[in-house]
């Protein structure tokens, strides 16, 4: 028998498009997004342990079901961050890297306990750190979409 290093390949697929996921979170988040139109940040509070979920989540790690809508603040704290795009940092010269990168941060808004993600503006990349205080930068026109809370600036 002649041993081949490349044998026939059989093509096939997974018709994942026919899967229909069920998620209570969609309806909950919709309610939070709706509130954004009024510049309100609505989180969902757990009756068991008091954690406030923003964005809302249908179940809590303590096995209770968060059910109380509470207003949270538009100020918060950075918990993690990254930079999108190549640019010079820490003395690294990258070919074609110019300008300021997009700074993306994970934040926990005051009055809530969970993370959401947005971009951080008006700051030098070198200055960003975990624990830094921020404030949401609301757009002129509120859309009731995640875009409304997609940007923040140092507080």
């Amino acid at each position, binding site marked *: 028998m002649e041993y081949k290093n490349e044998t026939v390949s*059989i*093509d*096939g697929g*997974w*018709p*994942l498009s*026919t*899967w*229909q*996921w*069920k*998620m*209570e979170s969609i309806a909950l988040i919709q309610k939070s997004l709706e509130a954004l139109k009024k510049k309100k940040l609505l989180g969902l509070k757990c009756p068991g342990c008091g954690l406030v979920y923003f964005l809302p989540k*249908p*179940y*809590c*790690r*303590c*096995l209770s*079901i968060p059910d109380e809508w509470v207003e949270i603040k538009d100020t918060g704290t950075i918990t993690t961050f990254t930079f999108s795009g190549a640019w010079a940092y820490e003395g690294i010269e990258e070919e074609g890297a110019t300008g300021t990168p997009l700074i993306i941060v994970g934040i926990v808004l005051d009055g809530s306990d969970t993370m959401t993600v947005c971009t951080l503006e008006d700051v030098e990349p070198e200055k960003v750190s975990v624990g830094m205080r921020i404030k949401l930068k609301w757009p002129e026109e509120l859309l009731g979409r995640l875009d409304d809370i997609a940007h923040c600036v140092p507080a």
Partner: protein
Amino acid sequence: MDKEVAIIAYAQTPYEADVESSREMQVLQVTRAALAAAGLKREELDTVITANNDYLDGRTISNMRLVEPSGAWQKNESKVEMDGAYAALYALTRILSGDHDIAMVIGESQASVYGGYVPGIMMLDPTFDRQRWLLNEVSAAALQARAYMNACGVSEEQLAGVAVKNLDNAAKNPLALRAMAGADVRKVLSSRLLYSPIRELMASPLCDGACAVVLASGKAAARAEKPVWIKGVGFSHDSYLTERSLAEMGSLRDAARRCYGMAGIEDPASQLDLAEVHECFAHEELMAYEALGLCAAGGGGDLLDSGATRIDGSLPVNASGGVLAANVACAAGLARIIEAAMQIRGEAGEHQVPGVKTALAHGQTGLCAQENIVYVLGGE
């Protein structure tokens, strides 16, 4: 095994075709209910094992979103990608190791989410059978049914008889999805023909649901009410479906032999008071009678006809209605364990069989019942 690990609580959702709840919320419900039944707090759980499947969930790492709803947050958690009866086995080894005392075991899936028989087709040999698209869970089962009927002289009426018995029992089980009080053979034989000899009512309905069991070490079970002890367990893998004789369930026979050895069962037909078997299709129950040694090889049809396995017979099988009444992949076998435990504790309500002290529960995974696991459970 003598009083080493016990089932101290359990919970099941009702089984529904398309429940208005995510899998996460169903898991949360059974976790809370099982903990409440055990009188335990989440903090008292040592380990959590879930049974679910990436292709059923449609998300790779299907257990990753079950951490919180299963009570596993910041706990020693793992996942068995088989029926929940295997998750119970994994939890059992964890407890016997001495490292853990109390384990939560959960099985779940939602047929309303996944693409019907696609996950089963994805189990086939990808180098040949899979993309030829002739085999699936039902057509493969039909090949097995025909091979078995031919080898053992079983008739279509006897296959239908299994469905009649189980769906009639299911009418007494409030959690069952498919139930038909007073069903008859004619009705089953006039249901939609899928792959001969399999008709719609001989095939289990894939559906939504979750169930949970709390296992405890002998020490931890000492303060539990009505613990149900695991007396023996055995499991076995069989060859791929085209490489074995489909006329018998070799791995179930093997699993039963291992289990009986551990449980000290020499004559199952007389020592067992009740059995819950994982019959995805009607013929599988008859084949299971033989493989489990409830009758001689080839005697499955006769045992059914004798009425011994009816709910009022000498050895009731699937008093709950079995899997023909509701098939939640990854949960159906764990549900058999729950039903058996429920009977031993006398908590089965309308489908309670009097005086059950020792009961058998069976779970399976794979096409044509390729993987089988058997438990013998007993009361005090």
